[in-house]
C-alpha cells in the first residue's frame, strides 16, 4: 500500500476563522459557528476523498491544541497557562495534573466532526503519545514521570477504543517530544516506549491500524528502539531527519513507514516529483509493508490554502510511486 494522509491539526479555512472571531465578539450565534465548523471539515474531507486518500481525517479543526480535549475532558486535569508549543510561534495550554487521571473514553466526542465523514469511509484519528502528554504537562499529583505516563496511557487507550467503536480504523499517536532537543537518556526512552506500548497494544485486534509519528526531531537514531513497538506504522519527520536506507532497514519487514516530507512549518510547496524522489532516496532497497507520504507535522502553522496544496502534492507523489486509487 502506498498512500498519503494528514498527520495532525489542520489550519482553519478563512470562513471558519472569520466565524470564530465573530463568535468571540458576540457577532455570530453558536449555530452559525457550528455550521462553519461542519462546512470547513466537509471541504477538507471532500478534498481528501477527491485525491483518493484512504484514511481520512476531519482536520481536528475544533482542537485548540493536541492536549486540550483531554485537559478539559478527563478527571484529574486542568487546562493551565499558555506555553510555547516547541519552537513555534504557537501556544498551547499546559495541562496541570491535579488528581488521579480518569477517563470514560468520551473526551473526544465534542471535538470530532463525525457528520462531515461519510459512512463507509476509513477514518483516521490522531491522539497524543502518552510520553509527550506527560512531558508537556505539569504534574502536581503523581510525582513520578513513569507513573504519570502510564496513567495517561490508560486513559488514552480508553479514548482509542471509543474511536474504534465510532468507526475509526486508523489511530496515530503523535510523538513530538522523543526526538526533540538533545538525545534522551536510555531509561527515559524505555519509559516512553513502555507507555506507548500500553496505549497501543491490541488495538489492531479491535480493528484499527496504528502509527507512532515521531516529529520535531531526528527519529533515525531511535529506529532500532521503535522496531519492537506493538504498532503497525512508524512515522518520521523528514524535515528533521536524513535517514539512509541502512537505518530504515532496522525496521522489521512487517512495519509500515510514514514519511513526513512536506514541511508543515514552511509555505514553500514541495513538488510531487521532489516528494517522490525524497521518498525513493530514503527507502533505497527497503520495501516497507505500507508507505504513507505525509506532512512533517500538524499543518496548523500554515494558511489553509497552502496546506491544501501540500496535501495535493503528497497525493500526487503517492500516485507517481504507484499508489492511491482515484
Amino acid at each position: 500500500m502506498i498512500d498519503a494522509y494528514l498527520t495532525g491539526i489542520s489550519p482553519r479555512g478563512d470562513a471558519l476563522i472569520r466565524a470564530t472571531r465573530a463568535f468571540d465578539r458576540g457577532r455570530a450565534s453558536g449555530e452559525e459557528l457550528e455550521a462553519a465548523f461542519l462546512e470547513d471539515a466537509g471541504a477538507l474531507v471532500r478534498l481528501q476523498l477527491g485525491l483518493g486518500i484512504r484514511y481520512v481525517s476531519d482536520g481536528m479543526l475544533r482542537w485548540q491544541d493536541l492536549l486540550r480535549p483531554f485537559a478539559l475532558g478527563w478527571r484529574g486535569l486542568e487546562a493551565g497557562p499558555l506555553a510555547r508549543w516547541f519552537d513555534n510561534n504557537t501556544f498551547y495550554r499546559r495541562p496541570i495534573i491535579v488528581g488521579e487521571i480518569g477517563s470514560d473514553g468520551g473526551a473526544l466526542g465534542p471535538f470530532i466532526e463525525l457528520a462531515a465523514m461519510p459512512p463507509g469511509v476509513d477514518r483516521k484519528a490522531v491522539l497524543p503519545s502518552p510520553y509527550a502528554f506527560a512531558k508537556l504537562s505539569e504534574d502536581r499529583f503523581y510525582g513520578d514521570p513513569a507513573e504519570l505516563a502510564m496513567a495517561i496511557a490508560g486513559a488514552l487507550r480508553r479514548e482509542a477504543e471509543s474511536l474504534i467503536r465510532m468507526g475509526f480504523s486508523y489511530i496515530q499517536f503523535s510523538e513530538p517530544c522523543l526526538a526533540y532537543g538533545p538525545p534522551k537518556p536510555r531509561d527515559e526512552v524505555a519509559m516512553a516506549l513502555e507507555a506507548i506500548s500500553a496505549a497501543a497494544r491490541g488495538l489492531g485486534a479491535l480493528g484499527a491500524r496504528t502509527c507512532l509519528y515521531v516529529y520535531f526531531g531526528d527519529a533515525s537514531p531511535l529506529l532500532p528502539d521503535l522496531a519492537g513497538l506493538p504498532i503497525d506504522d512508524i512515522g518520521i519527520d523528514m524535515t528533521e531527519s536524513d535517514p539512509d536506507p541502512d537505518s530504515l532497514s532496522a525496521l522489521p519487514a512487517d512495519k509500515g513507514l510514514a514519511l513526513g516530507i512536506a514541511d508543515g512549518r514552511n509555505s514553500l510547496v514541495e513538488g510531487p516529483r521532489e516528494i517522490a524522489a525524497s521518498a525513493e532516496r530514503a527507502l533505497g532497497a527497503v520495501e516497507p509493508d505500507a508507505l504513507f507520504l505525509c506532512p512533517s507535522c500538524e499543518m496548523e502553522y500554515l494558511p489553509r490554502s497552502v496546506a491544501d496544496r501540500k496535501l495535493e502534492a503528497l497525493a500526487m507523489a503517492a500516485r507517481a510511486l504507484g499508489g492511491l486509487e482515484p
Partner: protein
Amino acid sequence: MKAFEKPLFTMEIGSLAKPAWRVKAHLGEPVDAADLAEARLWGERLGIGGYGALLEALRAPDSPGRRRAALEWSAIYALRLLESAGLDFVFDGEQWRREMYEHAISAIGGFAFLGEVRSFDNKYYRKAACIDRPWRAGPIYLEEFLFAKSMARRPLKVPVTGAYTLADWSFDEYYRRAWMARARGPRAIREGAKRDMVLDLAREVLRPELRDLAGAGAEWIQIDEPAATTHPSEWEMELFVEAFNESASGLPCRVSLHNCYSDYSLLARYAPELRGCWQISLEFANRDSRRPGTSDADRPGYRALRAFEEAGYGGSYGLGVLDVHTDFVEPPELVRDRILYALGVVGWDPGRIQPCPDCGLRTRTWEVALAKLGALVEGARLAREAIGCEGGL
C-alpha cells in the same frame, strides 16, 4: 542628556490600546456618539489643546485627511497619557502601527502575506512569506518618529521590531530555494537559508532604518526581539546575537533590547555578546508574587536577574515591575520593593535599573494603564527616597 542621568528613571515599553475612534477612522468607518465622547473625555483629562479639531475630523466622511488625523491625534493622545503619568521617556503608544510584525513587514520589499495562522485558541495573525531578497522599500518608522518628536514634551525612546523576530515569524521561500541548490539535507538547507534571511534583514533593512532614525535625532532605539529564545540551540542564539550586532553596533545613539515571556537563563548566557547594548528590558512582574518585601522569597520573579549578572552582563536593566496582563494596579510600595530587590542584585547602582512595565500595555484600558503607570512612577520615587537619592545624583 539630562534624563539619562536621573537615577531609576522610568519608561514605557511600546504599545498602548488603540481608541475605537482611531481604529474606525483609520479604516474609513464612521464613529458613533460613544467614540466621540471618549475622544472628548480623554482630551479634557489629558489637557489636550485643540482636540475640537479631532472631533470635527471624526464627524467628517472618510478621506485621506481624516485617516491621517486619526493617526496624528492618537499619537498625541498617547504621548500626553504617558507624559501625564510622569514617565521620563515616552513614545506614541505605537498608535501608527497595526501590529509590530505586520507594520514592519508591510514596509519591506520581498514579502507577501499568505493568510492567517493560529497563535492559540481563536487568536490568529497574518503571516508573510519571504519570496524575494528583502529590501527597504521605504522608511518603516521614520515618519512616525518625526511626528512624535515634533509633539513630545519628554525625551523619546523608539521601539522597532528586530531582524531575528521578523525572520522567525515569517515563512521562507526565497532563501530555501537558493539553498536547495547549494546544500544537501533538510537541516543544512533550513539553517543556511535562515542565516542568510536574518542577516540580510539586519544589514539591508534594520541597519539603514536605525541609521536614519539616529540621523533624524533619535537618542534611544529599543530593538524588540520577542522571538529571541524560541529556538534554544547554540547556533540560533548566536544568529540572534549576530543580527543584533549587525543591526545596531556603532550607531550614534543608545540602543537597547526588549524581550519578554522567554527563557532568561538562556538569554543571559548571550547577553554579554550584544555589542553596544546599553540596556536589556525584561518582563519580571508576571513571574513575581504580589507580596511586599525585598527577600528572595518575596521576589521570585526577579531572581532571573542574577543569571545575567553571573554571565558577566554589565549593562542596565529595564525592570518590568507592572504585569501587563492583569488589571491589578500594583501598589507603589510593591513597585518600590521590586526595584530595591533588583538594586541589591546589581550592587546598589541606581544607574543600572530603569523601571518599566513588563511589556506594552495594549491589552489594558487607558484607565488601567494610566493607574498602573502612575504607580510605577510613584514606586520609583519611593525607591529613590529609600536609597537617599530622591533629588537626582
